[in-house]
């Protein structure tokens, strides 16, 4: 590619002014109106966002939104920042959904975020106290009316001692309100719909779970009315002491203290869950390399990921190259027909291919065992070794057409006179291929091989849809299997199984990130691709 920019002499002030006027004069009025309209939409959305963020008291995000909006307005109204006008939209998306998420992943990797640890400490305390509640014996019965507002159910309670009306929901503790009374029982309140009894009877499931806090202090317990008519006071068997920052079990007397691990822990090490989210430093990484029930699978998954990616690239490339050489003969008939047939697997959506192959390779009912092998029970996808072989076969099917197309293109790009010159010099076809065509071809194809490696390194769909990563390893604490690659392992640790461990999954992500970064930097150095950017 030739460099078409010549260094131009710096413009004089007059020239610059002239250029600006020409630029301004060349823009039709319609474009300016369109631009103003688009910016108005952006600003309107930003104002709405600021309003919402203000009500949620998210000051940092609010500041960022304001700053970005001001910047965007400046860029598009300024006459100067021309490159920025073209780059800003892409960069905003890139920063929010690529760079930020990458950094956020890094942060999560240093926390205990996951099942049992996904909220703040306050949330953990109130949810612990709420979950351990028992009805207070001999406590008075509170007459209750079920009310509703915008889909939220509330309890309108009459205090049996004072006769006052109290209103509360699951999120809002009981507060005194002005209500209409009927026979000493509060029955209606402004702004809320009183539900008729017939409706209340259909809501038993919601009412079972509706627990209205008595006051802001979770130790005061809560009021529940499972039948929608009479409420009873429930108090937790756990008691939170804010000063000592500990929870005491009033029945057994055990004290659970905050020892900095993100959960209240007793002296003997038992934890009360849910806990809350804390930064745990390098704990996740230490666990990944020292806990043998995690380290074992991590090592074998890493090795398999490399084996899979390397063999995938090599096998598809060699089959593709072979076919390209086979078809590189103009005397061959029906070439275009064959060519179309061979592109078909590439055109078929990849996720469907993996699912179809999974059906064909099913051990008991699949086409391959039932028809081709006459009813054999070959465990294509359930034997650790055979499952890996199956994955490589399916990936060959998926990947060879791409390599075939690329090699065809590259071979046709080699000038015929190179070939003729070699023949004149007495080289045989093998020598011509080995010494001349292959090196020329590799120059073209090498970057594609690298990106193909990167693609297969993270070829989640194939693994997940063909074997699901199975067969499972036995005796490991994370839900991974023999054919899982790193990326599918991350997905499983984070999103499947009984416990979701976002912290550990993110720590794995960081490890993958380091591996991929090293590989890409080294390979780019080798191919000098970055140097060629002009």
């Amino acid at each position, binding site marked *: 590619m030739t460099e078409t*920019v010549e260094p131009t002499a710096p413009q004089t002030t007059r020239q610059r002014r002239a250029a600006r006027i020409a630029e301004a004069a060349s823009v039709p009025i319609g474009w300016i109106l369109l631009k103003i309209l688009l910016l108005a939409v952006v600003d309107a959305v930003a104002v709405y966002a600021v309003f919402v963020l203000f009500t949620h008291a998210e000051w940092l995000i609010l500041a960022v939104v304001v700053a970005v909006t001001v910047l965007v307005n400046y860029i598009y109204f300024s006459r100067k920042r021309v*490159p920025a006008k*073209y*780059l800003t939209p892409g960069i905003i998306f890139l920063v929010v959904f690529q760079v930020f*998420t990458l950094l956020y992943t890094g942060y999560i990797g240093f926390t205990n975020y996951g099942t049992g640890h996904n909220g703040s400490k306050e949330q953990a305390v109130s949810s612990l106290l709420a979950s351990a509640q028992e009805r207070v014996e001999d406590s008075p019965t509170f007459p209750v009316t079920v009310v509703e507002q915008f889909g939220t159910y509330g309890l309108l309670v009459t205090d049996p001692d004072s006769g006052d009306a109290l209103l509360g929901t699951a999120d809002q503790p009981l507060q005194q309100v002005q209500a209409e009374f009927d026979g000493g029982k509060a029955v209606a309140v402004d702004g809320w719909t009183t539900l008729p009894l017939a409706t209340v009877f259909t809501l038993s499931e919601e009412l079972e779970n509706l627990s209205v806090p008595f006051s802001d202090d979770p130790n005061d317990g809560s009021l529940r009315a499972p039948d929608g008519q009479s409420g009873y006071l429930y108090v937790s068997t756990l008691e939170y002491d804010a000063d000592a920052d500990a929870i005491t079990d009033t029945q057994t007397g055990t004290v659970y203290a905050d020892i900095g691990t993100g959960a209240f822990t007793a002296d003997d090490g038992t934890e009360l869950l849910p806990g809350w989210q804390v930064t745990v430093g390098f704990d996740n990484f230490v666990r990944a390399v020292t806990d043998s029930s995690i380290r074992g699978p991590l090592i074998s998954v890493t090795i398999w990921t490399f084996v899979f990616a390397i063999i995938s690239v090599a096998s598809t490339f060699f089959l593709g190259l072979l076919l390209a050489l086979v078809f590189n003969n103009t005397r061959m008939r*029906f070439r275009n027909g064959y060519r179309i047939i061979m592109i078909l697997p590439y055109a078929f959506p990849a996720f469907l291919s993996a*699912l179809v192959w999974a059906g064909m390779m099913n051990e008991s009912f699949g086409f391959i065992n039932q028809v081709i092998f006459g009813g054999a029970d070959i465990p294509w996808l359930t034997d650790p070794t055979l499952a890996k072989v199956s994955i490589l076969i399916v990936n060959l*099917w998926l990947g060879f057409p791409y390599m075939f197309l690329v090699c065809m293109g590259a071979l046709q790009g080699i000038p015929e006179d190179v070939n003729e010159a070699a023949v004149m010099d007495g080289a045989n076809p093998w020598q011509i291929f080995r010494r001349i065509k292959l090196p020329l071809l590799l120059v073209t194809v090498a970057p594609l091989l690298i990106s193909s490696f990167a693609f297969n390194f993270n070829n989640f769909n194939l693994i997940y849809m063909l074997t699901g990563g199975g067969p499972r390893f036995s005796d490991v604490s994370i839900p991974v299997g023999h054919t899982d690659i790193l990326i599918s392992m991350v997905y499983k640790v984070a999103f499947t199984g009984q416990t979701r461990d976002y912290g550990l999954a993110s720590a794995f992500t960081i490890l993958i990130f380091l591996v991929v970064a090293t590989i890409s930097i080294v390979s780019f150095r080798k191919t000098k691709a970055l140097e060629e950017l002009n």
Partner: protein
Amino acid sequence: MGTTDTRVRRRSAGAWFADTGWRHVVAIVVSIFALFPLLYVVSASLNPKGTLTGSNQLFSAIGIDSYVRILTDPQNPYVSWFGNTLLIASVTGAVTVFIGACAAYAFSRMRFAGRRVGLVTIVVVQMFPQLLAVVAIFLLMSTLGDWFPAIGLNTHTGLILVYLGGALGVNTYLMYGFFNTIPKELDEAARIDGAGHARIFFTIILRLVAPILAVVGLLSFIGTVNEYVIASVILIEPEQQTLVVGLTKLVANPRYADWSAFSAGAVMAAIPVMILFLFLQRYIVGGLTAGATKG
């Protein structure tokens, strides 16, 4: 195979085999490998029986029952999945092309501070696929959803926004290479005639680079159709999901799955994509190798 014309016949069979005959042998073997899963899925889709075992006798029974089943099953809203996929992939493809083309224009035609760093950053960042950060994306979207339900979890808009995070990346690099092959003299001539940068971009450059726009659009479309991880995490309700999430769930347990209904769904999903692909394949190959070859 059409190898029996007179010119070939005159030569000995051995010579013919050494020259082109063996090529046909290789081609036929590979063609069988390439075709047979596709024939299998078409056959299974035409089979009225639902099970995996029932689909094993190729083309033994022909009927469109399974097509009717997948289109009308209230448990699996295939039509919604199809519509969702088309919508999400089209919008993502179109906006990706536009954003990428804008960036490629800036990188190709303008000289500014940070240009080289910007190009290198794009190449390096696209090395790390978004699905690696899926945990963070999920948490980000769930927080965003608390503030702005319209772009949070379980919304198509939210998913499209996440996909657009990858709009600058390999696509821009591909387009950048192509933009550089358009002679600069064209811009300069237009500039002398009084055209501003916006008019040059929209009326001259975009028309000349149309082939690469088509390629990037199609690759982005197909990539979005195939994307499972982020879609499965963000789209929660069956009505909101895409084909890849829905169909994967449909055959999660092959033993009990309605295999021919799945196959019918697969055939209907694949045919439009395959036609589009075969139609544009020459451009695609050109585009793929153009990004790689320098010159």
